[in-house]
């Protein structure tokens, strides 16, 4: 069979070229050209992925496919790290999501960011993000994945702080970066542990090494899995490192859609799925994953109940949905988790883009309390948002109906804590439906509460992606029905899914019921709103706690940041500045003066005396090497033997 031509390196490189062109020249290029560059390269990249997908579908590309003759990156001793890519079912699905949704959001951004002075900068960053994200997804080894991992973090930081004149945006960017750094630290330790224990960083080799030792479980594998989990919680905004994601909404809305909902934050889930062979060997780590996931899902959903900023609701919703994915991973239902990742990418991107369209319509206003009655003013946005809300709430036969159901079923089927986790998930599903419909009602129904604005529908360049994503949100679940798990099985392993006949239908019905309950409560409270937020007077202390986001930020500030600052300050002022620097200054000064007094006689400034010393040095070296030459061995031999 002929070698299939994949152009794999070009999938990341094309957006990178876009980044280079726009980043280096964008300031001088006309806007139309910037848009063209920004769209053409991701589009080409997407087409390449489609090409690969077609080859895989038609069977001429055997999966998993790892690139032969990939250029070496690091070759040190027995460790070899290459730039090689791996295409298997998992990375292919992820690549399709990343480039496809990414491309749609690029299109949307052309409309959304049209008035921005930093237009070229925005697209340069966005292309850079796509570059790193595709690197992350394609990477055939942990280290290359880490490069992508750090890179998307950088792109995320740049884009959160895109409006760098705004102090809140800057600090949000820093917060994201710092919190991520904690996670990355764990990831890095995990990588070192892998290297120390496996001697390789390539996924396939690690898996092969594990497969060869079926008895190897727990112990160091648990440590590795937990370290990787720390990394994943950082990137995917899970407890306790979720705090950066809501703040990341300071960035432009399409960025929130692409990076902080659809793709980058799911990298943690992807990473766990990719290294599932490690987690599979450590039940403890898996349990931790599941618990973190369920806890985050519930926790974030409760905060989301009371948020008034439309994007923050979505942000907490994202955290919550990511929790679901972790829950899926934790019960070893990786394919269900990835399935949910995919549907979530569709409907959450759609939600954010629709929210962006609403914000655009409201002239930049993000507070839901000032919106209302937009249903007739922005009809297309309204309808696509409706699709997304139905999808996320698990309305029957919409996308999340299938994926969330799969996760919940898997949780229920898992032994031990499974039932508890399932129940938490079920409650969260009700909460999800509630806060989503709350958002829906507040935004689109009733009367417009801020009369200073004149809402208008967005241009088609923004609505087009909305419509496409809306369709995907509706039908996205159908592809997964039954086949998805089987399709992904070669890359993430076969897992018993919760197929228990009648019980399964009962579970499904319960989930739908939970969603319906959430909708009903929301309908009662917000359909004909008299006050801006009906929840507030109902449960005052709880509301305050929720509106304050459980004061996690404040707790972190007092428990970690402040003490750290104080210690740092003490360390800087007394240890570093006074003891080390001051002492060193005195010491060095003294030594320098002493030696200077001696050596200054040498530094006469006279060129010829320097030359003389040079000659003396040369003669000395010659003597050293050549006098023993007459004794039979050269000085070099003696010197070399001494080492």
């Amino acid at each position, binding site marked *: 069979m002929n070698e299939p031509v994949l152009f794999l390196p070009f999938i990341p490189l094309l957006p990178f070229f876009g980044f280079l062109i726009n980043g280096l020249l964008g300031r001088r290029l006309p806007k139309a050209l910037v848009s063209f560059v920004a769209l053409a390269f991701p589009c080409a990249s997407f087409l390449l992925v489609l090409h690969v997908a077609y080859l895989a579908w038609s069977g001429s590309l055997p999966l998993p496919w790892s690139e032969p003759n990939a250029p070496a990156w690091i070759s040190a001793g027995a460790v070899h790290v290459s730039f090689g890519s791996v295409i298997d079912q998992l990375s292919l699905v992820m690549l399709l999501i990343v480039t496809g949704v990414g491309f749609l959001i690029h299109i949307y951004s052309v409309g959304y960011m049209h008035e921005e002075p930093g237009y070229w900068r925005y697209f340069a960053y966005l292309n850079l993000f796509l570059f790193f994200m595709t690197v992350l997804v394609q990477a055939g080894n942990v280290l290359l994945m880490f490069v992508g991992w750090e890179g998307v973090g950088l792109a995320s930081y740049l884009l959160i702080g895109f409006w760098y004149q705004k102090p809140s945006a800057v600090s949000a960017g820093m917060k994201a970066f710092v919190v991520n750094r904690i996670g990355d630290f764990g990831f890095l330790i995990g990588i070192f542990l892998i290297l120390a224990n496996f001697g390789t960083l390539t996924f396939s080799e690690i898996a092969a090494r594990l497969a060869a030792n079926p008895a190897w479980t727990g112990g160091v594998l648990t440590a590795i899995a937990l370290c990787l989990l720390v990394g994943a919680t950082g990137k995917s905004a899970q407890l306790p490192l979720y705090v950066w994601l809501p703040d990341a909404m300071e960035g432009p809305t399409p960025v929130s859609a692409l990076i902080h909902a659809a793709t980058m934050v799911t990298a943690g889930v992807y990473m766990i799925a990719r290294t599932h062979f490690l987690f599979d060997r450590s039940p403890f780590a898996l349990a931790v994953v599941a618990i973190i996931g369920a806890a985050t899902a519930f926790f974030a959903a409760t905060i989301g109940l009371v948020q008034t900023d439309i994007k923050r609701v979505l942000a907490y919703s994202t955290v919550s949905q990511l929790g679901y994915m972790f829950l899926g991973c934790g019960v070893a239902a990786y394919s269900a988790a990835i399935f949910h990742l995919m549907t979530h990418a569709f409907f959450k991107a759609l939600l954010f883009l629709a929210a962006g369209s609403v914000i655009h319509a409201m002239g930049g206003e993000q507070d839901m309390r000032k919106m209302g009655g937009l249903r007739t003013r922005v009809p297309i946005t309204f309808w696509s948002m409706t699709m997304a809300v139905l999808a996320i709430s698990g309305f029957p036969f919409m996308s999340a109906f299938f994926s969330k159901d799969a996760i919940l079923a898997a949780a229920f089927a898992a032994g031990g804590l499974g039932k508890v986790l399932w129940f938490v998930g079920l409650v969260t599903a009700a909460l999800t439906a509630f806060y989503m419909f709350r958002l829906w009602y507040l935004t689109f129904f009733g009367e417009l509460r801020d009369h200073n604005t004149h809402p208008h529908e967005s241009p088609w360049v923004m609505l087009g992606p909305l419509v496409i994503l809306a369709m995907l949100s509706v039908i996205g679940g159908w592809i997964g029905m039954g086949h998805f798990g089987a399709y992904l099985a070669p890359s993430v392993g076969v897992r018993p899914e919760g197929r228990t006949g009648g019980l399964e239908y009962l579970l499904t019905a319960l989930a739908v019921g939970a969603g319906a309950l959430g909708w009903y409560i929301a309908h009662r409270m917000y359909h004909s709103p008299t006050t801006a937020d009906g929840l507030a007077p109902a449960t005052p202390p709880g509301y305050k706690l929720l509106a304050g986001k459980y004061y996690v930020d404040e707790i972190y500030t007092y428990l970690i940041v402040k003490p750290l600052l104080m210690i740092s300050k003490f360390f800087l002022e007394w240890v570093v500045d006074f003891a080390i620097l001051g002492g060193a200054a005195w010491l060095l000064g003294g030594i320098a003066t002493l030696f200077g007094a001696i050596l200054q006689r040498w530094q006469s400034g006279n060129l*010829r005396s320097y030359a003389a010393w040079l000659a003396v040095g040369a003669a000395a070296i010659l003597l050293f090497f050549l006098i023993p030459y007459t004794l039979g061995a050269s000085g070099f031999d003696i010197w070399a033997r001494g080492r």
Partner: protein
Amino acid sequence: MNFTSVHMFSDVPLSWYLLLSAALFALGVVGFLIKRNLITVFMSIELMLNGVNLSFVTFAHQWHAVKGQIFVFFVMMVAAAEAAVGLAIIIAVFRARSTLAVDRIDLMKL
């Protein structure tokens, strides 16, 4: 009556070439030590370079290695660059000090 019979005393030992090269190098060093004019000192450096070049060419001949000659070629290029910069520096120094005597240019600044 062969044209190639022209060389009658044929061979010169390569060590002579090497000795000549060493001598040129040593003379260059001596020049550096005794010359008092900045430009002449610089010329002495060129002399050293030339001495070393000769040994490269000799060894290239000895080992039939083209790379020895290419090394000389690179040395020439670098010497050209060095001469350009060095002479520019000399001009700058002369402008600041209006002297070319090495012994008078002994401050570590212009």
